[in-house]
């Protein structure tokens, strides 16, 4: 086994360990856990065998296999980031609504406490 492969296997192995640890700690929700576990498996497969990448690259007509790796990696990160932006927007929207609701409910509660009625 050559050094390159050993290092890449070690690296991908530690990423997998990190993801599993984060899941165990409850710091990664299932929805994201699945995505990252799957990603780790793909990374390990690519590290274990050069043949996978080479075959895939030739199949789509790319003669320099690492190019395919960069392309797919970048696309993957881009999609994940757009997904985060969407999630972030939704959370911020929810946060906004909750803050308004809390403010209005607090006011109602105060009014009810003052008049002693719940109408």
């Amino acid at each position, binding site marked *: 086994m050559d050094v390159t492969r050993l290092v890449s296997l070690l690296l991908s192995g530690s990423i997998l360990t990190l993801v599993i640890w984060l899941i165990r700690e409850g710091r990664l929700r299932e929805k994201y856990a699945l995505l990252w576990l799957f990603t780790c498996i793909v990374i390990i497969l690519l590290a274990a065998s050069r043949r996978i990448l080479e075959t895939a690259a030739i199949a789509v007509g790319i003669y320099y296999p690492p190019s395919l790796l960069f392309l797919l990696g970048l696309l993957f990160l881009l999609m994940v980031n757009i997904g985060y932006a969407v999630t972030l927007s939704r959370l911020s929207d929810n946060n906004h609504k909750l803050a308004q609701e809390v403010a*209005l409910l*607090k006011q109602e509660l105060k009014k009810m406490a003052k008049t002693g009625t719940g109408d």
Partner: protein
Amino acid sequence: MKALVIIPAYNEETNLPFVLKDLQGFDGDILVVNDGSKDATEEVARRAGVAFVSHPFNLGIGGSIQTGLKYAQRNGYDYAIQFDGDGQHRADQIEKIVAQVESGKADLVIGTRTLAEGYKCGFTRKIGSLIFCLMIRILTGKRVADPTAGFRCYGPNAIRLFSLAYPDDYPEVESIITASRNGLIIAEESVLMRSRQSGHSSINRRKSAYYMLKVSLALIVDAMREKIVWSEA
């Protein structure tokens, strides 16, 4: 008809007493929306004996107006007046912007400053305003003379629509598009203004480029959105 004055207030402890005093003769209720102020804004409202709601943190002017409109809707108000907490708006001008809402002629009335005497604005602001007028004209076909004015009256339809959707920050111009796209009738009425008592405008020169860009983008995005289902009928 039940009327509510909504005062969005963020760190307005110095101006708010003056504003509340100005509103003493107003025939209706007052709601101070304390937008997560770090000063004694809430205390000022409490001592004055007016209703107030306090956001747990700062939401911005749009969020504050919307909270006020949600309050108006839940408490059965027929119309709501947006009245700035910094003392620029005058209580004696309220009846002017209320008239067309009261008679059912308009859903949203904007208190236009440009036509009134005593209002001066900088060159940059004039250009910005002009661009917004043009964009509104293109996107909705409507003529609005002072799209950035914050002295407004919301009728029942506007209260219902904006409770569901109201822009976050710099909401003045964008809300005109939202209103127009969702079938509200917009009217303008010229009003007199006061110069600022204390504090600073929310938009300084450094921010104005960002303001222009953001609002312009928001206008286009808003014009592409699907219509909001807001009426009961």
